[in-house]
């Protein structure tokens, strides 16, 4: 082996470029070990350790905001503002998830200590995806993220639905990863590199290769892989079953962080490597964005299970975010970044309410089970109302600011009709979000309504989410500015 190459590789190592992910991995491993030596069923201290790890990773992320970018590992990783912004989204999502988890796991009878480290590993994988500037790093991140999620989704191993969720997610996820790899291989075959910037440059010097069938096929296969993770139509079939079957905090977690990570990586690949094919992927994603929004919203209307309804609504939100990619301008991309953060707050908040409102087995999370809920449990009712208004995209909430940001990008890029379809879809979504409120406030409670106890962790996460939703809704300027600075 050529020693100079090894030396060069070692010189290129820059741990600062992966510091947040590194912290999470180290803390995660430590927590895993501590879990092994702890008494069975005791998980609270593990969750605290993991929260601490997330906060440390958050400090490492925010500390370098707007500092010179960190590059490392021979151009495989870049910790730029883009990655830092997404990292913050992941960390916030994970913190909210862990806060709502502990009492939930105890109630459902699965106080498993590996749960928390797995969340950290997922987050680390998401961070690698967001900061990956090479297809291989992105793939690596995606695998770390996915494998941890497969386990988390099937965590309740004695429950059929959870098993179904885990297995379905695993089989379909592995399949889609195959597509992604194949896409990477084809692009590599055309350009001879997996580095995103190099691919982009290669196409600039060899524009004829852009129309090469191999390039087009590679782009399509890559898109399949990411659209699957995003949960966009027509690759959304897994989402409702997995979201419904997975433990509720994990559903919440999955719908925010990993989805944002897929968007981050997808954006980097499309803009850096495949920028020359912009016309092709915008027209493709235009159609898919419309399909995703519409399918998600229309099917959500007929759901009676709130968790499943939120699963479909999550599909439609992926559609709104895709509008930002179609716009493919600065505002649209910053819009996606902002929207993912906003969505993290509002969706995790809504799910946090569900973790508290559910009873063991969670068979009461139906619309009927929520009859009169708002008056019996005023705090949870008001919180849920705020989150639902935000999901609808009504001012003054984060959801409105986010939608405004993305649709502003679309309108500026000239996609007026896409924006119109988008807002009309929001109008459709009003119906099913309002229906939850109709049950919560306008119907009388069932006779057997039982008050559910408020648990500290989940309440903290709900309060944090409310603060996030209202702050991003009323004073979105600062974070919007950050999303603007986050462009790579």
């Amino acid at each position: 082996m050529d020693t100079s190459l090894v030396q060069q590789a070692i010189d290129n190592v820059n741990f600062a470029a992966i510091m947040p992910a590194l912290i999470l991995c180290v803390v995660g491993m430590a927590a895993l070990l501590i879990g092994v030596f702890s008494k069975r069923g005791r998980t609270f201290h593990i969750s605290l350790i993991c929260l601490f790890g997330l906060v440390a990773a958050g400090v490492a992320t925010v500390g370098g905001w707007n500092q010179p970018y960190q590059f490392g590992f021979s151009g495989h990783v870049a910790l730029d503002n883009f990655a830092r912004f997404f990292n913050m989204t992941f960390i916030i999502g994970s913190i909210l998830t862990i806060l709502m988890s502990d009492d939930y796991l105890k109630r459902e009878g699965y106080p498993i200590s590996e749960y928390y480290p797995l969340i950290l590993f997922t987050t680390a994988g998401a961070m690698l995806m967001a900061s990956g500037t090479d297809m291989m790093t992105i793939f690596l991140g995606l695998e770390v993220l996915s494998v941890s999620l497969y386990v988390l989704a099937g965590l309740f191993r004695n429950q059929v639905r959870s098993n179904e969720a885990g297995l379905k997610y695993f089989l379909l996820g592995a399949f889609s990863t195959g597509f992604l790899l194949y896409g990477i291989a084809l692009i590599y075959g055309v350009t001879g590199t997996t580095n995103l910037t190099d691919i982009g440059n290669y196409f600039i010097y060899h524009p004829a290769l852009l129309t090469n069938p191999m390039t087009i096929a590679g782009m399509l296969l890559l898109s399949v892989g990411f659209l699957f993770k995003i949960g966009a139509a027509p690759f959304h079939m897994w989402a409702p079953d997995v979201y419904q079957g997975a433990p509720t905090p994990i559903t919440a977690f999955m719908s925010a962080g990993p989805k944002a990570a897929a968007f981050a990586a997808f954006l980097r690949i499309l803009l850096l490597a495949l920028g020359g094919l912009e016309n092709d992927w915008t027209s493709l994603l235009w159609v898919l964005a419309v399909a995703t929004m519409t399918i998600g919203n229309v099917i959500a209307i007929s759901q009676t299970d709130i968790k499943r309804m939120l699963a479909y609504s999550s599909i439609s939100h992926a559609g709104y975010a895709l509008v930002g990619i179609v716009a493919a301008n600065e505002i649209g991309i910053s819009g996606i970044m902002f929207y993912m953060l906003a969505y993290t707050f509002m969706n995790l908040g809504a799910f946090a309410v569900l973790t508290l409102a559910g009873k063991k087995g969670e068979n009461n999370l139906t619309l009927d089970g929520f009859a009169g809920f708002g008056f019996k449990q005023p705090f949870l009712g008001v919180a849920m109302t705020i989150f639902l208004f935000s999901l609808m995209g009504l001012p003054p909430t984060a959801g409105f600011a986010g939608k405004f940001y993305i649709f502003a990008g679309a309108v500026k890029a000239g996609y007026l009709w896409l924006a119109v379809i988008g807002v009309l879809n929001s109008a459709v979504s009003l119906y099913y979000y309002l229906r939850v409120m109709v049950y919560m406030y306008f119907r009388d409670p069932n006779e057997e309504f039982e008050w559910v106890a408020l648990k500290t962790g989940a309440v903290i996460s709900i309060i944090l989410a409310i603060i996030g939703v209202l702050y991003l809704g009323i004073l979105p300027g600062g974070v919007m500015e950050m999303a603007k600075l986050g462009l790579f």
Partner: protein
Amino acid sequence: MTEHLLSLLTFLPLVGMIVVLFLPRDNGPLLKGCTLVVTLIVFLASLPLAFNDVFKTSAEMQYVEFVKWINIGDYFQMNYFVGIDGISLWLVMLTTFIMPIAVLSTWNAVDKNIKGFMALSLMLETAMLGAFISLDLFLFYIFWELMLIPMYFMIGIWGGKNRIYAAVKFFIYTAVGSLLMLVAIIYIYYHAVQSGINIDGFSILDFYNMSMEPELQTLLFLAFALSFAIKVPMFPVHTWLADAHTEAPTAGSVILAAILLKMGTYGYVRFAIPLFPEATQQFLPYLALLAVIGIIYGALVAMMQEDVKKLVAYSSVSHLGFVMLGIFALNIQGLAGGMLQMINHGISTGALFLIVGFIYERRHTRAIADFGGLAKVMPVFATVFMIITFSSIGLPGTNGFVGEFLILMGAFASELRWFAVFATTGVIFAAVYMLWMFQRVMFGKVTNPANEKLDDLSMREMALMLPLLLFVFWIGIYPNVFLEKMNPSLENLIKQSTSKQHVAVVEVEQPSLLTLNK
């Protein structure tokens, strides 16, 4: 103080809401009292606006406040930009004036979840005032949408039997319209940026000066017009109104009729017409046609109602049709009449809903057939009801007459002459449905034994009605106090809606309003 007066008015109710949220939930009188005090303070604080003579001479925005709010460089900017002119002045006053009355009307009517109702009322007041004073389109949109939330819950929680349907219908109808308007707002902004004019955020004052191609105006105008037409409501998107009005609790109906509906007409005057003057001209006949259909259709449907509240609801469709006709006349009489009629409708229809509330609280029915001969049992009530009925019909000496007269005169003077001819029948129909209803409810023998021992109006109820009666006569006899302060702004609006046009418009000699009323 005066430089922040508008913000103070707008956000005081919000502060009040937070206070109310921390009061004990079962102390009803305290909750209601606190809300009443807050709304009264807001009313008193708004009085200096009404007595400011600057509106008589200036069409400029007054009490302007400008704070940078969101500033994302070349992406977009939004500002907290508020101010009022003669157009919004009286709508702000109407809001602050009606709110204490609406709150006082809940004293016996709202008995469950009082805290929630009071908090929502105060939130609603903030949203309504905010929408009337916003000069930044984005800010306006925020307040505009914010209005939906409290009203939705008011109808849904405290409403009648069919409340869920009514609440959801209300919400979806109004939200669909405004979502399209949102896209139009974004589009206008980027159009302004591209055309290179100097803009300060989404300031409408800047957008007024922007020229747009006619095709573009058509599209954008349609988005705005639809949103406002739903809110007004104009035929054929008026169907939510009957449900919402009928199911809403009394205070909700009063606020809905007196203030919320004015958002739609105000939207035309403030946004749709001056922003898109050419498109306005293009759609003028169609909109006037819809207004006239609304006048006649609303009146005919009202005639056949068996429920007093439904009758009043449909009479709103008819009255708002008059307002729209006056506005689309686009001359000083029509616009002044339309603006005045907005206030009149707020007063007289608000009062009618209160009256319906009075008899509903006594008899728990609103069917006309259940009443008859009430005049003998409740003489004071009969007098009040009669005055309000006359005001609603537009009898000379009451406020309704001045408004409708100016509107019809304006419409005759404009190119909408034939529309005015048909609209006039609406005045006759109004007399038919109102007087017929009044006769069946109030006159004749007391046929129903349950009606024999009804109490006449209490002190509280008189206190509600007296201020409204005062304005019925004040506007009816000496409307100049109100008209002279809107005139400069309306003149300015007419200039805006004609000067931007490429086609030369022949100036018609307009008789001055001031001579007309003196």
